C-alpha cells in the first residue's frame, strides 16, 4: 500500500487525535461543518481549518439520549454524543446547514450545551432559481462577515480566490481517482477511495492535495495488477452518509465492486466546480447550490446525477444503503428506484443501515442481490 494511502486511512480512523495534532502544529482554529453543501473555502480563506464532521464508529450512544430520541438519525445522535463527551474538543466552532430536523436541532442545542466561540446556521437553497441563488449569495456573505468578526480580520478576495483554486484542484484529483474505478485495472479498492475522500475532510487541504497528486502520479508510473474479475458486478452505491466500511467489505466479498457512488461523503462532496475568475462568493453560491445532497435536491435532479453515473460507469445495479430514520433519503428511494428501472432496466435494492448495527442480515441480502445479477448476462 502506498504510504499516502496509509496516512489517509490513519487520518480517518483517528480523526480527533490527528486533528488535535494538526491544531497543535499549525495553531489554527478549527471550524466544523456538516455535509458538502457549505463552501469550506470561506472557512479556509479566513485562516481557519475546516473539518467536515462525522462521528467515530466506536462509541455506544449514552449521553445524547437525554436530548435526542431514538427515532432520530443515529449518526447525528452519535455525533452529538461524542461532542458531549469531549471527543471533538479540537473544535472552536461550527456551521450548520439547513437540512433535516436533527441537524437543525444541533444548531439550537450546541449553544446551550457546548457553547463554542462560533456557531452559525446557513440556509441552503432547495429550489434552484436566480432568486434563490441571489439569496444564497447573501447568506454566504453573511456567514463570511460573521467569520471575519470571529477572526478579527478580513477575508480578502485574493484569499478566497486562492482557496477556490486549491479546493477545485483537490476535487479534480478526487474525481480523477474515482474515475479509475471505471477501468479494468482499478488501482484503488472501495476502502481506499473511502479513505481518500474522508481524509480530505480532516487533513489540511494543501497537504491532502499534495498527497493526492503524489498518489495519482504513482499510479500513472506503476502498472497496477488486474484486480477486476471478468464477472465482477458493477454497483452504484447510494445513501446519505455511508460511514460503515464493513458494508464495503461485504460488497467486495460478495463479488461486486462499487464503481460509482452517490453519497455525502463520496462523489457528492467533489461535485462543485467553482468558476475561478468571477466574484468569488457568488461563484461559490452557484456551484454549491447544485451539490446533489438528498435534503436540498429534487428527485428529478438527483436522478439526473445518478443516471449520469450509471451510464458513464456501466453500472449493473444500484444499492441504496440508507440509514434508519433518514427521512430525506427514504422519501426519494421509491421514485428513484422506479425511474432507474424504467430507464436502465437494472435492479435496485434498499438496505437499511444503522450506527453500530449487526451486519449479518445485510450481508445475506447483499450477497443475494449480487448473486441475482451474476445470474444475468453482465
Amino acid at each position, binding site marked *: 500500500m502506498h504510504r499516502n494511502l496509509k496516512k489517509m486511512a490513519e487520518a480517518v480512523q483517528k480523526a480527533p487525535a490527528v486533528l488535535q495534532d494538526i491544531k497543535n502544529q499549525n495553531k489554527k482554529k478549527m471550524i466544523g461543518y456538516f455535509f458538502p453543501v457549505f463552501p469550506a473555502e470561506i472557512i479556509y480563506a479566513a485562516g481557519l481549518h475546516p473539518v467536515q464532521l462525522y462521528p467515530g464508529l466506536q462509541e455506544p450512544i449514552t449521553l445524547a439520549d*437525554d*436530548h*435526542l*430520541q431514538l*427515532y*432520530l438519525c443515529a449518526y447525528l445522535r452519535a455525533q452529538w454524543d461524542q461532542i458531549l463527551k469531549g471527543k471533538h474538543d479540537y473544535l472552536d466552532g461550527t456551521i450548520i446547514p*439547513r*437540512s*433535516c*430536523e*436533527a441537524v*437543525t*436541532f444541533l*444548531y*439550537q*442545542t450546541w*449553544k*446551550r450545551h457546548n457553547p463554542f466561540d462560533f456557531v452559525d*446556521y446557513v*440556509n441552503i*437553497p*432547495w*429550489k434552484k*432559481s436566480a*432568486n*434563490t441563488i*441571489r*439569496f444564497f449569495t*447573501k*447568506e454566504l456573505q*453573511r456567514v463570511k462577515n460573521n467569520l471575519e468578526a470571529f477572526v478579527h480580520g478580513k477575508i480578502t478576495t485574493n484569499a478566497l480566490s486562492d482557496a477556490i483554486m486549491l479546493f477545485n484542484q483537490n476535487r479534480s484529483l478526487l474525481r480523477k481517482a474515482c474515475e479509475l474505478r471505471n477501468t479494468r485495472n482499478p488501482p484503488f479498492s472501495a476502502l481506499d477511495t473511502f479513505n481518500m475522500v474522508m481524509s480530505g475532510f480532516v487533513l489540511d487541504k494543501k497537504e491532502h492535495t499534495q498527497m493526492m497528486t503524489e498518489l495519482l502520479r504513482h499510479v500513472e508510473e506503476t502498472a497496477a495488477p488486474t484486480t477486476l474479475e471478468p464477472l465482477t458486478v458493477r454497483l452504484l452505491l447510494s445513501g446519505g452518509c455511508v460511514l460503515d466500511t464493513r458494508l464495503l467489505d461485504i460488497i467486495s466479498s460478495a463479488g461486486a465492486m462499487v464503481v460509482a457512488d452517490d453519497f455525502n461523503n463520496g462523489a457528492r462532496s467533489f461535485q462543485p466546480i467553482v468558476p475561478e475568475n468571477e466574484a468569488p462568493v457568488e461563484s461559490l453560491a452557484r456551484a454549491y447550490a447544485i451539490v446533489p445532497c*438528498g*435534503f436540498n435536491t*429534487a*428527485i*428529478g435532479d438527483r436522478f439526473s446525477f445518478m443516471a449520469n453515473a450509471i451510464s458513464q460507469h456501466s453500472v449493473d445495479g444500484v444499492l441504496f444503503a440508507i440509514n*434508519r*430514520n*433518514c*427521512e*430525506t433519503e*427514504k*422519501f*426519494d*428511494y*421509491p*421514485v428513484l*428506484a422506479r425511474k432507474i428501472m424504467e430507464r436502465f432496466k437494472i435492479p435496485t435494492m*434498499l438496505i*437499511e443501515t444503522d450506527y453500530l448495527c449487526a451486519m449479518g442480515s445485510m450481508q445475506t441480502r447483499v450477497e443475494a442481490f449480487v448473486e441475482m445479477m451474476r445470474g444475468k448476462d453482465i
Partner: protein
Amino acid sequence: MEIKKRERPAFNRDIAAAMKKHYSDTRSRKPLAHTLMSSNPLIEVAYAAGIQPAFPENYACVCAARHASPTYCSNAESHHYTQDLCSYCRNNLGYTHSHDGEPVNGGIGDPDLFLMTSSACSHYFKWWDTLHEIHQKPLVFVNTPRVMEPSNRPDFYVDFAQEEIRAAIGEIETILNISISPDRLVRAVYQSDKTVKYWQKLLELQKCIPAPLGLSDLSNALFVLIVLAGTREGADLMEKIYRETSRRAAEGMGILDRNEEKHRLLWLNIPFWYNLKILGYFENRGCVFPMSDYCQYIWGVTRMDSENPLEGLARKSLEGELNTSLDDHIHLLIRDIQAYHIDGVVAHSNRSCRVLSVGLLDAANIIREELNIPVLVLDGDHADERVYAEAETMTRIDTFLEMLGG
C-alpha cells in the same frame, strides 16, 4: 375508558359544517391545489386566485380520527415508504396509491397543481416533490429560509420571501392562464388577518379560570385558522368562535366547572388524533389543557397589513414555531406556563413529527428544573396508532395524575 359526556361549545357544530363543505369543495371545485398547512403564504394566494386548496395533512388527521390511517400507512409501506417516515405523509401516499374502497370523509380530489412552501417540516420538500413525480402536475414552490434567531433575522430574508411569493403568483398565473387581481389578494390578506386577530384574542381568554375551551375545541378551531385563511367565511367563523368563548369566559363557564377544574395542563406537540378521548379522560380527573404549543405558536402568530399583502405574507412564512430558536421557544413556554396558570405538562414525543419533537426533552428538563412542575413524556405518533401503546400510556398517565393529586 369511561368518559363523561360534556356539552362542548356550540361553535364546534359550525366548524363541523365548514369542514364538511370544505371536503365537498375539494371534490367538486376546480382548479384544485394540494397544499401545506404550515405558515403557508400560498393559502391566501390560492383563495385570491379562485383556486380551491386541499390539505393532505388535515385529511391525515381526519383519517387518523376515523382509525383509517393504519390502512393507508400500510399501503404506503407496501409501496416502499418505510415506517420511519412521517405518518401524515404515509397516510397521504397510501391514499394516493389506493384505487378501491370508500375513502374516509369522501376523500379529496385529484390535484391540478401543488402549492408548496419550505416554511414547514424539512422533509415536506421531499413529500411534495414525490407527489409531483407521482401525479405529474406542476409544483409551485416558495423556498423561504428557516429563521433560527428571530431577534436577529437578517433584513434580506423578508425581501427574498416577498420575491419568492411574487414569483409563485406569476407561475400560478402562467400554469392556469389566469390573472390574480391585486384587489382580491388584498381582500384575502385582510380576511386572513382578521381571522388571526380573533384567534389571538381567543387564546387570551384561555387564561381565565375555569378555561372556557379544551384542547379538542382549540384543535377544531385550528381548521378555521389555517384551512380557511383568506376567506370571509373563515374570518366570520373565527369571530363567532371568539364571541361564544368570550361569553363563556364572562359567565365563568368552563369545559370543567370552576370547582371541578383542579389542574391546568400544557400539552406539548400534536395530539393523538386517533385517541382524542384521552383528553376526556384527563377532564374526568379534573384536568384541562388551556393551551398547547401546537395551537399557540405555530400558526396565527403574524398580524398582516392588507395594504402590503406580499410583505405580510412574507413575514407569515418567516414566523411561527418552526422559525424560532430552542431558547426562545423555552422562554415562551415558561412565560405562558405562568400566564395560563399551568401546573403540569404532558409532552408527546411524537416519532412522526421531528420538528416538534427535537428539543422536547431539553424543554421538559428545563421546565422541571426552573418551574418545579411535573412533566410527563409520552411516546407516540400523531396518526399511526399502530405504534401507540395504550396500556403503557394509561399507566404513565395515572401515575402522573397521582403525582399531581388529581
